């Protein structure tokens, strides 16, 4: 789930509150008693995370379905 194509264009978004660019960090993503570390843009100042649309509707949705059927 941590492949780069999902983060394409992510650099256009910056934290509006801290006025800072985001940095790619490992973030824990969990669902139905399973969790995975995922590389996501995070505001180094306040910790706000960005989940791009392509990731949410692609890999995340896929993994959600798999976990729901487990």
């Amino acid at each position: 789930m941590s492949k780069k194509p999902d983060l394409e264009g992510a650099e256009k978004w910056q934290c509006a509150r801290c006025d800072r660019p985001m940095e790619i960090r490992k973030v824990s993503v969990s669902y139905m008693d399973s969790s995975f570390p995922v590389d996501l843009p995070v505001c180094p100042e306040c910790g706000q995370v960005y989940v791009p649309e392509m990731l949410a509707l692609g890999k995340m949705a896929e993994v959600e379905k798999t976990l729901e059927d487990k």
Partner: protein
Amino acid sequence: MTPLTSTYQSDAFVMTNFIDQKGLRALEARCIQEQAPPCQAGCPVHVDARAMLAQIGAGDFAAAYQTFSKTVPFPAIISRVCDQPCRAVCTRGEIGDPIAIRALEQACVALAGDAPRAPVKPLPARGKRVAVVGGGLSGLTAAFDLARKGWAVVVFEAAQRLGGRLWEVAEDALPRHIIERDFAATVLATPGLEVRLGAAVEDAPALRDSFDAVYISTGAVRGDAVDPLTCETARAGVFARAGSEAWSPITSIADGRRAAISIDRCLQNVSLTASRQHEGAYTTTLYTSTEGIAPARAVPLPDARAGYSRDQATEEARRCIHCECLECVKVCEYLARYDGYPKQYARTIYNNLSIVMGERHANTFINSCALCGLCAEVCPTDFDMGALCRQARQVMVAQGRMPPSTHEFALRDMAFSNGDQFAMARHAPGTDASAYLFFPGCQLAASRPGDVKALYAHLREALEGGVGLALGCCGAPAEWAGRKDLFEETMERFRAQHAALGRPKLALACSSCCQVFKTHAPDIELISLWDLLDRVGLPVQAAQPASRTLAVHDPCTARYERAMQDGARRIIRRLGYRIEELPLSREKTTCCSYGGLMGFADRELARAVIERRINESRADYVTYCAVCRDFFAAQGKPTFHLLDLIFGRGDDAAAAGRGPGYSQRHENRARLKREMLREVWGEDVTTAQEGYESIKLDVAEAVQARLEDRLILVEDIQQVIAFAERTGRRLLNTDTGRFLAHYRPAAVTYWVEYRPEGDHYAVFNAYSHRMEVAEETKDE
């Protein structure tokens, strides 16, 4: 695994123990698709004629010959003399001549029977000896079957040649070399099988003294009784052919085979009677419809002795209709989509429910059924996939294995309908008793709130004794989702309200509500709105453009509601329309894909279901369910709701108009309640809106369609923006100047791309996910 005793009590198709193997097998046995075709069942030795004809039809005579000779020990002989009990039961006979099966067997022998046969290889010798009295078809079949199983066999034939009555057949019908060739390749080529010609036996039972078993193929001696199932006689180890009057070559072979099975079991000292129910000819339970199949006469056989040519045989074989049932699969897009039939599906579901570890591949399958009951209606044995899927869903919920995302949106919609914003129940203003309680249902109120108001006004005027109003959802979505708990809670709450109003008769606009109340609250008296309007008269006597033809789509939950169906039709006619009946209507009507919440499990399937239904007629449709109406119109089929016709909106625009989206449906319900309270009861109920509800959005049409598709409501977006604006937690796109913010009110995180514009917010995009992101935020 959760132990299961739960059943869907009101259903005739109850499976108390579906979760065990025994229950599964009982269920599987109900589906007749795998039963033998009539020809095979009617054949005493069960030649798979259906498969053989398919092979001939495909021009593969070698394969067809294999199929034939696998079952029949003397294929060339039988292909000439078979008395064809198969033809008497051939389904093709209902629409033309039965298939000329024997002639086709003869063609197989002629075109593929000369190939060298593999040498007969018996099992290793097992040290026991069998005497067979009589060298006709029955005795030789028994001898050949037993010798191949490793028993030493001696055939005693009084004449100087084998074949018995075969030699009485005219030579041009049965050339003599055929008899000799079939026996040479089988009986005479089998090690361990000895033939003694000219060996008349005077006391056949006495052979038992020197043999381990005896088969008297010429029939019992001294009037001994013979068991027709096992061929046993009074003396242990002596078997005899049960008397058969007319000579039937194929029955002779079957009799010999039956005796061989008994003798083989006797010599092994195992049960002679176990599992023998389908030996010999029987009547199959397989049902095959001949509807839509053109009649066809047999391909003429110019010279019976020469038989069919290759081309003639192929043509004749292609007349076979390949008997199978699939009645349910033919009418159901869902059942057809998974390439199986209920017998297989029952096992699929059973296996899915039994998985302890691993992926449950059939979840989507189980959740995609419309639960509409059409399969049971068309099934010769009433197999109800809907009842099965409904129960499976309840099991999944009980096991904690129901995928949370599948029904959440629908259940949320139901919760909205039964929440303060919509639900209410009360007597008409200025009265304290109700003879009737009008319950329009959640979807009609969502789709056409104005009509609900007009109907309520009309009913109050037309009916005596007071007409109360109840707004809410009957609980059908919970029932479809397998949520017994939630459903029962909903039903209990309704019952309490209904009792408090003095148990008035329910006037129902929605057939699903009707089905739910009839099934789960049979003590509550009810009448459908369409039946009622037909009796008390219509609200507006609008002059309609007469002589237009509309095809009636009955909602699936109205399948067995004759009064509702008739009431609707009478109203349609009274308004000046002509009615076209769809091929599948009334008790055979199909679901619009809303039933069972199909679309939430498999959207593609739901689209296909709608597509199939809306193409059944070129006429515009009329229906009396708001959801069916909106679903069909959304996929381009001009469809009227019966209320459109009643309220004088019989124009094309009404039929083509799209129904409101999900958010608008919420809004319509909430507004309907507010307006009715104000207009009918004179109560001002401007409830204090929660903070986010006052946020004004500007959503472009294309974005709205996307939100609809992604099941994101206006209120979800409002909550995200409210949160972002309050906390400042949002991202900024440096190129576009738009914000992106997210918020997770419950189980779903919503992301919204927006920009403040004056007093409102322009919304450019929204998406969601269920996975939870661990955000270690530092807020202060």
